[in-house]
């Protein structure tokens, strides 16, 4: 049986990040109806027909099936955790469902460090994160605040 390599994110420290630093883009997709179905199953939530029935989606004025906003936000939050490393503690996360992700769309998850600072003996990194599709449209802008360990402490 084929196996995927599973591992915790790399170890990262406060000192590894600086203001303006670009984070490595993570690309998911092309997204599939299967991604949405798997998410609906994981949440036991089947109540929005437009997430799995194209006929209903179009009748409601949508261009077709759209993937769940919370799924896209959760993918972005997962990517933030991977960028920030295994010792990171996510303190706050914000996302806005600005545009739709549809089946066959790509999702490029991107980020940039906005600010690094220390407060009350703790070290924090604030970052902007967002998802763009293959047309370069930002579908999901967001931000996060993360507490990080200091190197050698």
């Amino acid at each position, binding site marked *: 049986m084929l196996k995927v390599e599973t591992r915790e994110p790399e170890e990262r420290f406060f000192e590894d990040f600086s203001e303006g630093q670009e984070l490595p883009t993570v690309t998911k997709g092309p997204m599939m109806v299967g991604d949405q179905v*798997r998410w609906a199953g994981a949440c036991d939530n089947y109540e929005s027909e437009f997430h799995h029935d194209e006929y209903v989606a179009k009748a409601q004025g949508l261009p077709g099936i759209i993937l769940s906003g*919370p799924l896209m936000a959760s993918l972005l939050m*997962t990517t933030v955790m991977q960028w920030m490393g295994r010792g990171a*503690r996510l303190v*706050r996360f914000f996302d806005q469902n600005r545009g739709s992700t549809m089946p066959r769309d790509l999702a490029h998850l991107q980020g940039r460090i906005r600010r690094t600072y220390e407060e009350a003996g703790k070290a924090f990194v604030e970052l902007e994160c967002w998802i763009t599709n293959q047309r370069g449209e930002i579908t999901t802008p967001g931000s996060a605040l993360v507490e990080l360990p200091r190197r050698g402490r």
Partner: protein
Amino acid sequence: MSAATGTPPDYITPAVRAIIGAEAPPLEAHHPVEASEARRFHQALMDDAPRYWDPAAASRYGGPVAPIGFPVHAMRRAEDEADPLDAMQQGEYDGVDRRLRPGLPEVQVPLKRLMNGGYEYELFRYARPGERIRVRSRYADIYQRNGRTGPIVFVVIEDDYETEHGERLLRSTNTIILR
């Protein structure tokens, strides 16, 4: 826009204003967090970090954990609870469920498109398999903006997730948009 006056209707009626601040009774998840439920969730997120199943990798958390955003999606239908899909078969159902959380009153606004605007999460700690999650929900605000396409009503919902022992897990501020 109303043709007679040219002013958009005000959907924030006294009845709508009266439910701002309404709180739902605490709602406890139907069952404690299950390991397989956490597995389905991390697989849906394409997040293969072993902290979700491997005790060695999860030692810094005191054992395997569910993904950090899991509590928001942990309230499930009980065996004897009505099938929510049945509600969609009712003749008067217009496709929008305006009861935005169990235990909170309907937001009675005659707008037909409901969208999830997004979330702000404040995160305290991971939930662990075996813990039972509880949520307290309230309508923090309901307000109207008039856009180019007509009135838009924003419903801001605060959900506080905690364990059955009252330990905080996550606070979510969710904006629902009706237009």
